[in-house]
């Protein structure tokens, strides 16, 4: 039952706790930034640093301790109101927190600590509290002794007392009444003395009054101890550390001559000599067996689980779903009545599977808050680098997203945020000239919308300079010189590989990573990214992601004998096309009338290259697809078969990325079906129609 190395586990859990504490610090500083100067907020930040310091000390992480200690001192000055909070100080705190984050990461990964940065930050922190003349911060007054925790916690860590040749001491010990009020007692102290060596104790009861005048809470007794132990006086005195000032005690070394005498019975008559054996009052001896006697740990509210295990569970549930679909199919093939017990049981089974699946997904779901906090750091650093004043407003931090998605989003979001600060926002001078406040705003938001997660990065900058974008694209030969592009097509040029609008590549966002890479990584998550920009008002990048990467509700359709799956959340409705509703706005461009509007028709079989275009769409089935921007498109299919849960099986990189194909799945009959990304398909064919020879894929 004993884990192989409990210290390693605690160490790992310490770093998890650090992340939480750092998150709490970020929150606290954020609140202070927004004007909360109440005591509790600064306390939270202080305690977080304090806890990190405490834990780091236990693991001998000296660099971390050193920094945390100084940071804590400065925070303490704020806490005790010796230091007032202003914008500069908060900025320093934010940077110190960022640095603390780096130190924690470095310590966790056993990497080298960025000490140079530590030193400069430490100096700044010291200056805040009136820089005590600590010479170069060489030896700060840290009373931390890193202790290599020994795990063989034997109770008797002391050497066994040597009975002969050991010095002897006479110890007289008289507790004050106050000593007992603090929860101290004489017995444990005498026991501790006995633990040092062999001793005999006499009790002096001479001051004890008669019963009629006895005050029960007053101390009357004193003890004399003759101790034979391999210990010096200081060690013996340390036994009285807790009761220093609450008792009187003397420690007198016994000379050879005295030692030969028997212990003088100081008070004579009533006190019996109580021999105490060494170690008698020790708690049960510690050996491996005594763990069995320890009762189970107190109930925990949180369990930390290895992500791999959850991964495995998710996969198993996926297999369960496939298996269940197969079973449903074979029951159906057996010709069972839908009202038979077997079919009813299966229905119940399906419901349970779905519940299990939801629960499993919930395990992996995490709020995007930690991701957003990292982004606030990016904004701070980026804004300093380009000399702009930027405020990050984040919304929807509690939106929960699959953990693996969160992790994969860090890089793309970082890049988008940097872009927003560097390219999106104008320079302060330009902003003032445009009648905007000097400080720019970058907004980061997350929300659930119809089964997907929508994340947006927007700025209140000048918007995309479309003329310039188009010119650059032409200059770089990315588009033909005579191309006529719509606004949104121009915006999408930003996603072309090798496109960079920055006239001079700044050291901030010009790192060789373009928006095409962002787009590719979003797509690999099964997501899409789109741009909306308004001249003079700003630009918004929207990322739309599936909630989970594992399972989705799909509509199974047939096109030219191929079975395909369309994600159900994309399908607004299904319809049968009749002669009345079908129309053509120009040769080759058909539309279907849906209520008061016209929706363009796309023949799925044709677009995927399965068959030539149908001669007539009349009586065909169509799926009405809602795009992220709210527009509609209708996909013509041959047959709608079923609506069911499907397990997403990613397509290996070896397949290459086919436009419009998101992934694949295994159906109940063991057949493999492709999962479509209808928006992508429609976008592709729209490009085609507009005559723009664009190939946006990387």
């Amino acid at each position, binding site marked *: 039952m004993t884990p192989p190395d*409990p*210290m390693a*586990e*605690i160490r790992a*859990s*310490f770093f998890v*706790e650090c992340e939480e504490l750092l998150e709490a610090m970020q929150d606290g500083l954020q609140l202070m930034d927004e004007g909360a100067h109440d005591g509790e907020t600064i*306390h*939270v930040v*202080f*305690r977080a640093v*304090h*806890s990190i*310091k*405490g*834990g780091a*000390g*236990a693991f001998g992480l000296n660099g971390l301790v050193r920094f945390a200690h100084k940071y804590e001192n400065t925070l303490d000055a704020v806490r005790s109101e010796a230091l007032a909070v202003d914008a500069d100080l908060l900025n320093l705190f934010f940077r110190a927190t960022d640095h603390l984050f780096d130190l924690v990461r470095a310590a966790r990964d056993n990497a080298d600590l960025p000490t140079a940065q530590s030193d400069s930050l430490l100096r700044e922190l010291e200056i805040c509290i009136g820089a005590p003349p600590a010479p170069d911060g060489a030896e700060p007054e840290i*009373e*931390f*002794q*890193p*202790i290599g*925790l*020994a*795990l063989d*916690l034997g*109770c008797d*860590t002391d050497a066994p007392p040597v009975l002969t040749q050991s010095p002897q001491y006479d110890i007289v010990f008289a507790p004050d009444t106050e000593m*007992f*009020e*603090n*929860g*101290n*007692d004489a*017995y*444990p*102290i005498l*026991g*501790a003395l006995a*633990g040092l060596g062999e001793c005999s104790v006499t009790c002096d009861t001479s001051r004890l009054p008669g019963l009629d005048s006895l005050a029960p809470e007053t101390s009357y007794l004193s003890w004399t101890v003759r101790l034979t132990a391999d210990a010096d006086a200081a060690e013996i005195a340390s*036994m009285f*550390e*807790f009761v220093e000032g*609450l008792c009187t005690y003397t420690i007198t070394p016994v000379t050879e001559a005295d030692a030969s005498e028997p212990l003088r019975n100081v008070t004579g008559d009533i006190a019996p000599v109580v021999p105490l054996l060494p170690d008698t*009052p*020790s*708690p*049960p*001896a*510690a050996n491996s067996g*005594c*763990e069995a*006697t*320890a*009762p189970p*740990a*107190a109930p925990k509210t949180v369990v930390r689980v290895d992500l791999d295990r959850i991964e495995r569970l998710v996969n198993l549930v996926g297999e369960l779903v496939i298996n269940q679909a197969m079973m449903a199919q074979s029951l159906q093939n057996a010709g069972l009545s839908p009202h038979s017990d077997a079919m009813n049981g299966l229905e119940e089974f399906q419901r349970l599977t779905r519940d299990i699946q939801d629960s499993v997904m919930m395990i992996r779901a995490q709020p995007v808050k930690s991701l957003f906090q990292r982004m606030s750091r990016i904004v701070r650093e980026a804004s300093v680098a380009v000399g702009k004043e930027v405020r990050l407003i984040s919304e929807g931090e509690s939106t929960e997203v699959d953990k693996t998605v969160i992790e994969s989003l860090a890089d793309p979001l970082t890049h988008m945020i940097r872009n927003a600060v560097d390219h999106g926002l104008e320079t302060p001078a330009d902003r003032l000239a445009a009648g905007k406040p000097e400080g720019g705003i970058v907004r980061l938001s997350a929300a659930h919308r119809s089964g997907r997660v929508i994340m947006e990065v927007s700025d209140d900058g000048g918007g995309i300079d479309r003329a310039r974008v188009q010119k650059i694209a032409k200059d770089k030969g990315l588009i033909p010189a005579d191309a006529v592009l719509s606004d949104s097509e121009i915006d999408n040029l930003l996603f072309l590989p090798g496109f960079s609008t920055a006239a001079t590549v700044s050291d901030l966002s010009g790192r060789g990573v373009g928006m095409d890479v962002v787009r590719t990584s979003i797509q690999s998550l099964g997501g899409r990214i789109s741009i909306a920009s308004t001249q003079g008002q700003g630009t918004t990048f929207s990322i739309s992601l599936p909630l989970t990467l594992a399972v989705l509700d799909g509509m199974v359709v047939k096109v030219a004998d191929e079975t395909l799956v369309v994600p159900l959340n994309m399908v607004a409705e299904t319809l049968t096309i009749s002669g009345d509703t079908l129309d053509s706005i120009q040769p080759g461009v058909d539309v279907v009338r849906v209520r008061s509007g016209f929706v363009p028709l796309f023949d799925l079989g044709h677009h995927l290259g399965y068959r030539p275009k149908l001669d007539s769409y009349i009586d065909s089935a169509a799926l009405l697809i809602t795009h992220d921007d709210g527009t509609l498109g209708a996909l013509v299919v041959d047959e709608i078969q079923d609506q069911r849960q499907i397990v997403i099986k990613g397509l290996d990189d070896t397949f290459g990325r086919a436009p419009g194909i998101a992934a694949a799945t295994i159906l109940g009959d063991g057949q493999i079906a492709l999962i479509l990304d209808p928006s992508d398909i429609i976008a592709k064919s729209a490009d085609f129609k507009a005559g723009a020879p664009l190939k946006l894929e990387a």
Partner: protein
Amino acid sequence: MSLHVLAVDDSRTMRDMIRLALEPAGFTVHTADDGVHGTEVLSQTAPDVIITDINMPRLDGFGFIDAVRENSDHLSTPILVLTTEAAPELKMRARAAGATGWIVKPFDPAKLVKALQMVAG
């Protein structure tokens, strides 16, 4: 019979370490996350000895010690303060609040066990 210890600390790492240090030594360890939680656990477990941190949310160590001492069942229950500072004035303050002894963080498991034996016998 093993001694029951109530350890109050807002740091999970610290609680884990206390547990790791004490359980092999035969103690039964109960933990609480802060002073308020500590008083709740106190009423359920009746510990033989209490270890408490000072800097905690909701109710700090001094407040927690006050609360323990106000409870007539725990007038003489030993309370050890786990502190990062060894400053004498802090020790005095802890003592004034009714603490029995103190341990400086980061603690050495053997010392902690000893200190507990010292106050709780």
